[in-house]
């Protein structure tokens, strides 16, 4: 800053002169200190996949224990700790960071921004997530929580869970909660303020729309779970009795608070998936999305209704009859916008020219799987039927169909779709298709039969069961399926490692995409865009391609005219 005084007095335009720029850091230090949304996004995704592997191993151990009736492989204590860690890991340490990571990378590129609105907050958000993961898995050194990912009070109170495992769970929820909250604020501010010129709300890509709505849901629901676990913490350590019925507290308070977060959480996990699918289907059908406005409206409707139906997780507790009816009908209402979306996606493909790269296959896997997950949701929303199905393997099957179908398959599609953008290299399509086939079939084998296990009377969260009503057969099928599923996921990891090393060069736009991220080189430079084009539709890349074609044609036509 040697400027102002020495410069000539007639200089009207203020300028900043820099003596020297810090040389860019390199190696691991550059990653640790980065505030670049792309690097933070990559770190999020890599860490999330590490937790996916951990959560997956926990799932396989659970399935091994349940493979045969009356198994003694794991102790009840270990088993309860495993399903607690599996659920918590998959929700808080795999899906949420994976979604945030992908959005961190893709959203600024899609809207033509050069970074997130608050880059340092973005980095803080990432490191808090890592801290949450370490605090939670630190409990492995003493005694992990055994109360399930829902940690119902009073089971999670000190009287019944004296070990500090529950405390580490509470701190995980706090730390990853702060991660999600400030991440959501960051994304919200970025999307509302930093869009490319011309990108009015009617031209925002659908993935960005879903991330915007998802951010709002997080901002609404995260403070509630943060409050709920804080009350649990004070109950456990500072002598309060919020959830202690023997001193006037209420166990149902925990359930209401937890599910007021827990149900919107479902949409927090699947809405981004809806967005990814809404980007991929048009590209590979070579058609515009069918009913853009309807899909945006459906997204908003799902968010609003989804915030008001939490007690359908509580149909079996003592509730007044009118509440049962209210929450049943409210839950039915969610099915309408969801159904609208499914039809819009199908009609996006209708009369298209559909291509089948791996990301499209995963999108179709998403459609089929999520369809069944949505339909079984109607059974559970009907409270008398839920009385029979609640807390059985039918529910386990249902939420895996919605979450794995709605979120994980969509994220897999997103990985295969955006990997070339992030790394500049293509993934192996053949290996990807094998991986897809194993993942999808493994998933259906594992979880379809679990509906039957639940209908035959098997409750969830039991470490052993008697061999009645074919339960032994059902569980063996499920366990076999889980290993096929695991192999499928493993092959995608192999594919990613292979792609990083020796994948074919992708170029800026390998799929002929519709949105702005395909405008910049792969991987994008630090500043993302040298020039941000003016946006004229939902599909800016189509506009640009058309314009280039026109420009190419003009001299051509001129040439032919001259020649004739």
């Amino acid at each position, binding site marked *: 800053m040697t400027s102002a005084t020495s410069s000539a007095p007639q200089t009207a335009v203020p300028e900043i002169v820099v003596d020297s720029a810090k040389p860019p850091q390199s190696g691991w230090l550059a990653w640790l200190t980065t505030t670049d949304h792309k690097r933070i996004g990559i770190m999020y995704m890599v860490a999330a996949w590490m937790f996916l592997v951990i959560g997956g191993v926990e799932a396989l151990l659970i399935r091994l224990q349940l493979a045969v009736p009356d198994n003694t492989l794991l102790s009840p204590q270990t088993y309860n700790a495993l399903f607690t860690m599996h659920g918590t890991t998959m929700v808080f340490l795999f899906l949420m960071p994976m979604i945030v990571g992908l959005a961190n990378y893709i959203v600024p590129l899609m809207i033509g921004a050069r970074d997130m609105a608050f880059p340092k907050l973005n980095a803080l958000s990432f490191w808090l997530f890592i801290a949450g993961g370490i605090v939670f898995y630190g409990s492995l050194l003493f005694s992990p929580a055994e109360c399930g990912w829902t940690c119902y009070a*009073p089971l999670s109170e000190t009287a019944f869970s004296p070990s500090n495992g529950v405390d580490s769970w509470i701190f995980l929820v706090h730390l990853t909660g702060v991660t999600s909250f400030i991440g959501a604020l960051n994304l919200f501010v970025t999307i509302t303020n930093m869009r490319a010129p011309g990108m009015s709300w009617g031209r925002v890509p659908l993935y960005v729309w879903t991330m915007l709505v998802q951010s709002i849901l997080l901002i609404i629901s995260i403070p509630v779970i943060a409050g709920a676990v804080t009350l649990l913490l004070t109950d456990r350590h500072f002598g309060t009795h919020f959830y202690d019925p023997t001193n006037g507290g209420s166990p149902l308070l925990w359930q209401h608070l937890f599910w007021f977060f827990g149900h919107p959480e479902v949409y927090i996990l699947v809405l981004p998936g809806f967005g990814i699918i809404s980007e991929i289907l048009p590209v590979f059908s070579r*058609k515009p999305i069918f009913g853009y406005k309807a899909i945006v409206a459906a997204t908003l409707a799902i968010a609003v209704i989804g915030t008001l139906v939490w007690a359908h997780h509580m149909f079996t507790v003592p509730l007044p009859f009118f509440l049962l009816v209210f929450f049943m009908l409210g839950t039915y209402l969610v099915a309408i916008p969801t159904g609208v979306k499914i039809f819009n996606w199908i009609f996006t493909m209708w009369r298209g020219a559909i291509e089948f790269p791996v990301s499209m296959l995963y999108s179709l896997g998403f459609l089929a799987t999520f369809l069944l997950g949505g339909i079984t949701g109607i059974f559970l929303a009907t409270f008398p039927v839920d009385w*029979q199905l609640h807390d059985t393997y039918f529910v386990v099957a249902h939420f895996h169909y919605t979450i794995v179908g709605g979120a994980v398959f969509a994220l897999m599609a997103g990985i295969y779709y955006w990997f070339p953008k992030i790394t500049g290299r293509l993934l192996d399509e053949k290996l990807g298709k094998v991986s897809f086939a194993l993942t999808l079939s493994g998933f259906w084998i594992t979880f379809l039969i679990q509906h039957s296990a639940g209908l035959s009377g098997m409750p*969830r969260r039991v470490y052993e069961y008697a061999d009645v*009503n074919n339960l032994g057969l059902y569980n063996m099928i499920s366990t076999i399926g889980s290993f096929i599923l695991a192999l499928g996921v493993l092959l995608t990891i192999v594919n990613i490692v292979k792609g990083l090393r020796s994948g074919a060069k992708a170029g800026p736009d390998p799929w002929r995409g519709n949105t702005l991220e395909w405008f910049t080189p792969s991987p994008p430079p630090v500043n993302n865009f040298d020039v941000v084009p003016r946006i004229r539709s939902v599909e800016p890349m189509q506009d640009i391609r058309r314009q280039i074609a026109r420009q190419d044609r003009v001299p051509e036509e001129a040439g032919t005219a001259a020649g004739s």
Partner: protein
Amino acid sequence: MRALIRSRPAQTSLLGAIVVVGCVLAPASTALAGVLGPDSAGGSPNAEGIRSLYFLIFAIALIIFVGVGGLIAFTVYRFRARPGVEAQQTKGNNRLEIGWTVGAALVLVLISLVTFLKLDQIRNPPNSDANGVSSPRNASFTPGPAKPAIPPNGRSLNIDVTGQQYLWRYSYADADTNSLNNVFSYEQMVVPTGTTVSLRIRAQDVQHSWWIPDLGGKFDAVPGYTNYTWFKISEPGVYRGQCAELCGRGHATMIASVKAVSPAAFRVWYAEQKAAIAAAKQDAATARNALLAKQEAAAKAMPSEPAVKAVPAPAAAIDGKKIFVAGVPATGALACGSCHALKDAGSNAAVGPNLDVVLKPDNAAMIKESILYPNKEIAKGYAKGIMPLNYGKTLTSAQLNALVKYIDEAVHGK
């Protein structure tokens, strides 16, 4: 589904579609129970109601799944990229979109209607059969925030179900307000067939969930709250279930069963249980009295009695009538007259037998025996265990003798 969406030749996809639909439909026609629907049969009308509601929704759901799934499969197959075919650049169709929004809403209205039609059978208990068993009228549950499940005529067998780590306890309501003398059992509940059984479900430590699949849905036992459900079993047998809400390490072993027997067999079982409880109580009382008598004897035998103990006053100085009418409040000896009728004392209470009548054949020694050990011989029509057993302790021997003398004279004349 996998077969549907591969980019393989057309025939494979079509074949796959047929195989998948076939796989869904074939078992539907043969073995519905357990695989595609709740595995509960022949239990209770509410379980039957849920089961039939499930299958009604299942039929609608199957049509939607096959319809929409088929549409996806057809679209993917029919509009796969082929050389020379261009994608049609449609951006939407308002009529179509309004159509499927309304369509989805109508399907949900249909499901709601079906549910409300079935609700009565599932929620509201019917009356017991003519030979059904019912709890005494004053043993009915008092309504809380959730409503007790009571049949229209108000006659049901009422059982308290309490969950605790990792055990279910059942207590059968009876006429008195004392729940400690109720018939109870753990893990297996015995009930009569043809009887509407109303359950009051509570928890004592953490949350549990009562669930016997054949006898209706789950009802959570939440500490601090009360939940209610019911069942009515037509066929004798054992119906099994288990706790359905994670309650700790022993959750998987917290099993429950309901054994349904004929009403006659149930009455026998109930009477046996009641008698066993009374006998156990009597044994305990006898042992306690024996212990007290021993202590008293030991105290008497001791020559240097502590000064604290009052020196017994001469028998003549003690007013037996006063003890009969007012008791000895200082030691907690209750007044005889507050429960027993005795003409001479002017009392006409009817909790215990009329002493003018029942003591007529007894001499003084027998009267004394009856005061000290009231359960030894019980007047016809009266229950054991109601009269206090502590007169040997609360009255000094002089007071007791004065009381016996008074009663003896009052009944037989001086």
